[in-house]
């Protein structure tokens, strides 16, 4: 089924947010906010299309990620979480599903913790945001942009499928993304010390998904999420690295779609 996507620009105070919205033609589809990785996102991915066949998908580009204009005041992922609550309010969206990918998973978890009754379902895929009880979140500061992105994949053929011969524009975008990651999550690197203590209030049932070869965020972080949230299921996807959404879109969609479709 063809999915119609359209690009929108929405002003939230000083922030000019760019987002893609896509979904089935019929009205009344469940809204789902999809939050991308720290390396930004291609505008289109098979996983996004699969979601948009069923849901009203809202895919914002995190402010400053891959864009030269950045909100100077933004200093923590929790600020993005608050900003997206503002976005949903302006869009008139209620009871959205949240799908957070990697870094986006951190933002999604913050959103759920800030407004524990607001969301229909919470899906975290290889989510950053908590200090892994075992191991550390991989530090992108010491490797090149390409090596970091490659480390996010189990199979380099999947990396090539998404990024091909990486263009200079893509390198610039990755540098901008990295700068923004540093601005808001430098220390402690890519986690919050308070988030684990706030997750217990979240009412939305949660699905935690991890690639079986995630070299960026240790699986122990997924286990921590699963323990800290009230109602959580932890699933592993085979032959996938950190970017499960890019590497195993069908397997991920098979887990996520029925979970969000539940009432």
């Amino acid at each position, binding site marked *: 089924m063809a999915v119609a996507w359209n690009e929108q620009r929405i002003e939230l105070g000083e922030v000019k947010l760019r987002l893609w919205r896509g979904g089935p033609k019929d009205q009344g589809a469940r809204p789902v906010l999809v939050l991308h990785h720290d390396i930004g996102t291609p505008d289109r991915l098979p996983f996004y299309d699969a979601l948009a066949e069923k849901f009203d998908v809202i895919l914002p580009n995190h402010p400053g990620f891959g864009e*030269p204009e950045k909100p100077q005041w933004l200093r923590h992922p929790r600020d993005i979480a608050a900003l997206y609550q503002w976005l949903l309010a302006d869009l008139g969206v209620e009871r959205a599903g949240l799908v957070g990918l990697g870094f986006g998973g951190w933002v999604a978890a913050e959103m759920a913790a800030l407004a524990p009754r607001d969301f229909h379902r919470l899906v975290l895929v290889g989510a950053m945001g908590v200090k892994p009880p075992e191991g550390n979140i991989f530090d992108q500061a*010491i490797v090149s942009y*390409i090596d970091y992105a490659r480390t996010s994949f189990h199979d380099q053929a999947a990396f090539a499928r998404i990024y091909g011969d990486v263009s200079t524009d893509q*390198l*610039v975008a990755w540098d901008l993304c990295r700068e923004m990651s*540093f*601005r808001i999550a430098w220390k402690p690197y890519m986690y919050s010390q308070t988030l684990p203590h706030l997750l217990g209030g979240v009412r939305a049932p949660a699905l935690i998904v991890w690639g079986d070869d995630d070299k960026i965020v240790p699986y122990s972080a997924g286990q921590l999420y699963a323990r800290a949230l009230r109602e959580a299921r932890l699933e592993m996807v085979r032959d996938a690295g950190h970017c499960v959404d890019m590497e195993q879109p069908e397997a991920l969609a098979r887990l996520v779609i029925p979970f969000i479709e539940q009432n």
Partner: protein
Amino acid sequence: MHVMYFTEQPMSAYPADIGLEVGHTALMFSNKYFDPVAGSRLYNEYLEHYIYAEEQGVEGFMLNEHHNAPFCMQAKCNIFASILAAVTKKAKIVLLGNPLPLAENPVRLAEELAMIDMISKGRLVSGFVRGGGQEQLANGVNPAYNRERFEEAHDLVVAAWSREGPFRWEGTHYQHRVVNPWAVPLQKPYPRVWIPGVLSQETIIWAAKQRYPYIALNTSIEATKKIWELYDKVALETGYEAGPENRGYLQQVHVSDSEEKAEKNARQFLWMQGEFTGLAHPVWANPSGYFSPSLRRNFVEFAVGRAENPRGRPTFEQQVADGRVFFGTPKTVIPKLRRVLEETRPSIYGIWGNDGTVSNEDARTCIRLLGQEVMPAMREIGKELGLRDPFETNAPVHLKYSTDLKPMPQAAE
């Protein structure tokens, strides 16, 4: 003309072959290869060099610091500055400088510097730097706020030095309930601040706006001239005319008693495999957010290995031909230095005399010849060319202490 002696204080006893094998000699090059026995010997040799330099007539010591790498043993320039403040008598102690963004508490830095100024009886020149990218990573400091932290830490240090305490500081990166250090500088309004740099235009512009002398670090003559063009332009826009007292230069110059020995030792300027700061991944030297956005497009290609280092990796012969490295006896070196002085007209000159594995004996010979022959000759040339330094002209320490500001040129009506 103020001429200073400089060395990176190399940890020359590190195993260079292992560095080559590992592929990097900075940031992540394991400190298991650091030999503290050799370190102890070298620190003491270097201290002796400064004391000896003063005895030989050297009038200034330029000190700096770096982290996690063998090319420079100074992890905190204030330590050597403190020792030299006590054990030397006349030479200026010129820190080029303390990396301000690394300071988690600039008030403490202001206290340390004030102590050095008092102990040295007013001989401190307190330069400040942003610190290289690797210094940010080595110290866990956010590279994306490097310039913000540099400017705010500067403002706080200067306030701690020159404002009557107690006062409160509520900044973006620094908040202090009570700023009231019971150690303030001897020099008034505060010690001279000089700003060294290599590449970034933002720093040149910032220094010119403060009226702080800018010290060009080992740039080619042509690049140096471009730096002064920009500095002079900003100075005019700011309301003053820049001159030699605003200009400093650091150059690699090894002198010896024979040309052959001088050349052999000068080749040690390339001892870190031809790189200034050792072999390192480009993203360590230039973490995202650290460098100027105008350079982003060129840099990313270099960072993934598709383009050459924008600074290039000139050979020793090329650097000699470009006039970036001088070597010889005092007789052959002095005319070369005269040409630089004539062409770029600085009044502050750092002579980077020794590096790498130059022997203790040869290093001392170089220092003796610099102190007894080269530096006095440079001071004479400086007089002849009217290159009066900030001490001689009694230049204002900062723009706000200027008494000669002209109204900014207005656009034609």
